[in-house]
């Protein structure tokens, strides 16, 4: 369903942006997105491992930050540029994992292999980088997702030490909390992280199959979801977002009938509302360009009994809610695109007996 109405809310599919591309118009295994000024969105692409035909030349393809506008309807999107690439030098990342933008529109990218945060200006110029390790505690580290609070401090999940760490945006360590476990306030491979209007922290507790709500200093407040595939349950949640109404969005890898990938919506009390499974019935502008340029793709698309598999999410990894335009951006990793849902307040329901 393109439009779903549930519990007084409307989730109205808008359009998708992206296609598979190692550079330029499109994304490559995107893992996270952050809002810039106006309609600009920064999309962090994990890329793929690639090897040219010599074994000593290991390369990652497609890793970069894409700068794009997404518009408000199909075809509005515009490619603005890109920066960063696979590597361990300045301005490069191996496993880009999280992205955030500050009030000066500096872009922060976390790297869960190098365990560092790299800072760029909005044109992609490298400004600096800092280690996201708080101390030499002997734990393996995997700096995963990130979010910036109202004071522009950064919360980072660490999927391998099962912690959340807090840093100033210039890299000063401010504290950490959490440990491995299944209890309240404990984590098993935490991944996505976000904040609500009141400053509460929400963590996608990936391998505990739940989302935890905590105070900014790590005191457990509530748990959303549990392992399973029934309503309100989840399998390996990856990303989390909260809208200004307090609704909580969780993307996970439960099956949607074609692929692993759903977005579950909960109200602020943790009551399950509805699930989205992906609705990209229309190709994005850039994806359509690829098809139009390749007659065999066009023919192949005409012989399938349904295009439904491409509508659906495939391993979504990130969520961003745009509070100004009241829309949810779902980072649809395997399909290298964003799927965008509006949450209108002025929706006029059609007559049911039309």
């Amino acid at each position: 369903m393109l439009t779903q109405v549930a519990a007084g809310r409307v989730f109205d599919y808008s359009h998708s942006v992206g296609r598979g591309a190692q550079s330029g118009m499109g994304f490559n295994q995107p893992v996270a997105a952050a809002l810039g000024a106006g309609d600009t969105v920064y999309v962090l692409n994990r890329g793929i491992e690639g090897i040219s035909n010599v074994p000593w030349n290991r390369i990652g393809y497609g890793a970069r930050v894409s700068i794009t506008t997404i518009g408000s309807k199909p075809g509005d999107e515009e490619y603005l540029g890109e920066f960063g690439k696979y590597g361990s030098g300045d301005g490069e990342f191996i496993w880009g994992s999280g992205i955030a933008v500050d009030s000066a529109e500096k872009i922060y990218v976390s790297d869960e292999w190098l365990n560092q945060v790299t800072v760029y200006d909005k044109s992609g110029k490298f400004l600096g980088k800092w280690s996201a390790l708080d101390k030499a505690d002997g734990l393996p580290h995997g700096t995963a997702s990130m979010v910036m609070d109202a004071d522009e401090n950064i919360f980072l999940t660490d999927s391998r030490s099962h912690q959340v760490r807090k840093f100033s945006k210039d890299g000063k360590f401010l504290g950490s909390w959490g440990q491995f476990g299944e209890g309240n306030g404990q984590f098993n491979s935490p991944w996505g992280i976000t904040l609500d209007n009141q400053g509460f922290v929400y963590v996608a507790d990936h391998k505990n199959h739940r989302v935890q709500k905590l105070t900014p200093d790590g005191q457990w407040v509530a748990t959303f979801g549990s392992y399973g595939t029934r309503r309100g349950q989840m399998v390996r949640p990856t990303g989390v977002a909260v809208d200004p109404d307090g609704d909580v969005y969780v993307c996970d890898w439960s099956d949607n009938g074609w692929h692993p990938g759903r977005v579950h919506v909960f109200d602020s009390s943790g009551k399950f509302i509805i699930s989205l499974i992906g609705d990209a019935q229309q190709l994005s502008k850039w994806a359509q360009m690829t098809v139009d340029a390749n007659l065999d793709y066009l023919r192949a698309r005409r012989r399938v009994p349904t295009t439904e598999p491409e509508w659906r999410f495939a391993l979504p990894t990130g969520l961003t809610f745009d509070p100004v335009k009241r829309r949810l951006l779902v980072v649809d990793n395997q399909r290298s695109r964003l799927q965008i849902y509006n949450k209108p307040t002025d929706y006029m329901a059609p007559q049911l007996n039309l």
Partner: protein
Amino acid sequence: MPTQNDIALMAHLMRRAGFGASREEIEARAAKGYEATVEELLNPEVQEAVDRYDLIRFQPWTWRPGTIQGMGAAEWLYFMVNTRRPLEEKMALFWHQVFATGVSKVDHYDEVNDMVLLFRQRGMGNYKELLTELAKSPAMIYWLDNCENHADAVNENWGRELLELFSMGVGNYTEVDVRECSRAFTGWTFVPKLPRGPLGRFDWYFQYREEDHDDTEKTFLGQNGRFNGEDIIEIICQQPATATFIARHLYNFFVADEAQVPAWAVTPPRDQDAIDLLSDTFRDSNFDMRATLRVLFNSDFFKNARFARLKSPAEVVAGTLRLVGGYEFPSPGLGEMARQPCYMGQDLLNPPSVEGWHTGTEWINSGSLMRRVNFTADLVSDVTKPGIQSIIQRLRAKGHLSPEGFVDACLDLMGPLEVAPRIRQELVDHANAGGSLRWDTPQAVENSNKRVSELLQLIVSLREYQYA
């Protein structure tokens, strides 16, 4: 307390039924007992399975990999290195060798990986059921053109290979049987998939098209009927030749190097009694692979076949990675690692033909041998790796070691490996240059670590290390 022979026998079992094991694991299993270990290997469900999402979490490209050569085997290598169900994974490798299907034609790693998943899930179950599922595998259907096999235009590729390479072997059927078999599989195809561009890979699904199936009378291996594919598989499984064919494959893969498949029609088995025992068990158990493997691993001919077969490249790579340790996490470079068997002559998921790889000494040429030695020597040279550290700790626990003791201890911990006296003497001559192995000062420790690294590199360069 396990004897040295118990240890050697358990190491032999774990090399064949798995990808080798650390000395700690070998000792623990030897203490538990040989037959108990065989039962544990035959019942993998008691061990936790590898979760592919632990890999996808960090390497999302492995979900539906592109067709960059060799990279698509990354997930499989991850499974081989991490599995706690070694025989399950070894059987997947076995069936991949028998039912060889390659991306060179299929051009979708994920579809061939789905076959590996089938082998992992059903490889120790009923052969007849596995064969039926194989006939429905989209990768196989495309690989052997059954999607082009129509009621009014028969394509014999799948029908021919089903008889020649997947069940009975050459000489046990006629050209008419091939034709009739192929007719029975008309209509077995798949639903077309969305193209790979612009949004990535999608899936094929098996589809039976009744309107494209030739439902008329057929005569197959002397039997008449309006046979469909399942009927053909039933008849195939009743043939003594099928049991013999599977038995020879099992012998070649698990026991000792045999003549290659094309020669089986004219070359008798290396051990006819063993083949008879395995084929009888296969038939008596109603084609149960688990029952057949139980007899194989508990047989004297298996126990007496130590170092009687050359390791395949996959065994060299996965086995050495498991030996040295530290490669369990899906680090950057996993894709490159997955290409190593390819460099040694075994491009996983992409066999050279439907006949699979030729094994035994045919694995070895000057290039592939160099690759094997360089790869393994590079890995064991790193004394920071946990598996090498474990060897060093065991050597240290023995105190000062003479050059002879040093060599013997390393050969023991790397296998135990059995080497000819001349080879041992060459290793001792090398060790003699450094004198006794000592650990009593920081400088001695540093020097001894270096010497262990050197000696291990020499050991993996030996002919003996290439044998399982």
